[in-house]
């Protein structure tokens, strides 16, 4: 699993990369009450706003971590946004995407580096 400075995690699974937010990010957000997901098939560029998360406190965005195409979204989050607080690094992934430039993955942190980043 790789981590971004935007508190997202990425996990490679075959040709796809699964994207979610970290436990630390979920704790900071507080209780999530709304998730708006992108359309499957959307072509995205790194740093595009692709997901809107609303918590009891505020609205925030998830940015596309890399260039590519959204291949699948976790639509269960629309009906159960609270899952983001319960299992952010597991069941509550947000979307899967393909990478148009896999080398963009190289800059991300491993778990130890991310733990140091948030410490």
């Amino acid at each position, binding site marked *: 699993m790789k981590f971004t400075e935007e508190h997202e995690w990425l996990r490679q699974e075959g040709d796809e990369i699964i994207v979610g937010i970290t436990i630390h990010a979920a704790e900071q957000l*507080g*209780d999530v*009450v*709304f998730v*708006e997901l992108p359309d499957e098939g959307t072509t995205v560029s790194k740093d595009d706003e692709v997901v*809107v998360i*609303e918590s*009891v*406190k505020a*609205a925030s965005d998830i940015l596309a971590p890399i260039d590519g195409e959204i291949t699948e979204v976790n639509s269960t989050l*629309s009906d159960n*946004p609270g899952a983001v607080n319960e299992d952010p690094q597991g069941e509550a992934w947000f979307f899967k995407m393909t990478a148009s430039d896999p080398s963009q993955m190289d800059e991300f942190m491993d778990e130890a580096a991310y733990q140091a980043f948030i410490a």
Partner: protein
Amino acid sequence: MGTLERTPLHRFHSDMGAKMVPFAGYEMPVQYPMGVMKEHLHTRARAGLFDVSHMGQVLLSGSSWEAVALAFEALVPADVLGLQDGRQRYGFFTNDAGGIEDDLMFARRGDSLFVVINAACKEADIALMRNNLPSGITLTVMEDRGLLALQGPVAGHVIATLDPKAEAMRFMDVAELSLSGHTVWASRSGYTGEDGFEISVPSDEAEALARRLVNDADVAPIGLGARDSLRLEAGLCLYGNDIDATTDPISAGLGWAIQKTRRAGGARAGGFPGAEAIFAVLDQGPAQKRVGLRPVGRAPMRQGVPLFAMEAGADQIGAITSGGFGPSVEAPVAMGYVGVDHAQAGTTLWGEVRGKRMGVEVVALPFVPAQFKR
């Protein structure tokens, strides 16, 4: 947060694991480890303890109750003189344009008036009173008192266990109580729509009292986050969001706080700042009204979201002044001002969020029925 003031409960918040944020010049708990959602639901189900010591507490005294009440009536369009000893009312300071300078609670304690004002407005309010009250009225800022609120269906039982005298108190009654050795000024009121008490306690006793109260298994400490969602569901105004110096009490739906005796034709009609402007709105009806709003979808609509009559077109007819997720409603809830032609409950409007218009229905307030002990 070096320049921020601290309440007498600062160490208590820290021990309870609160996340502290700057609010109105104070370092205040926004939430505890329980989290906003659970804190909100706990308050509606059991009892929540809030630190509201940042609010201003002021005592006005004079030669007689009549002198004090009439002096205060010159600043507030409420029936102060008719207030019985041991009773409290809601009111507001108005300006010459009929706008609201601050909203407040005032209680009669013998011949004196105990006034609780908003933290963000307290310096301006105190200046306003000092500049306008006649010389025979003494204004004392109670710097040495903290303010706690215990809110929720079990609050009455918790307080009555400590002082059985609380049992007889009804909504908006005030009384001196003795809570585990602490002599406090309590009012049966709050800002959540639940039954409960607001408790003024000497600063150096506030922490001990707070610890005694959370010792009860039914009581949990609650932060500002849940305080906001609770008051929003209860349809209560937040000064600075839902009412301000440019909103008049009639458009805000607060006309009930201007009793008949202060209105045109009443025994003490007018005589407060902006009386003419407010009477004109009463006479002609407001152009806009504060309404409850229920977003149709799951996306919260927050403060500042513009409201439209149609799904397309530039005809903005209002805006949201407070909005978020209502944990007890289990859906987004909001309040805002809309043109009177669009203020009827059941009207569908459109709120623009992130460039997209989404349906929102005008509904009656409150979202959650009040549970006051009348």
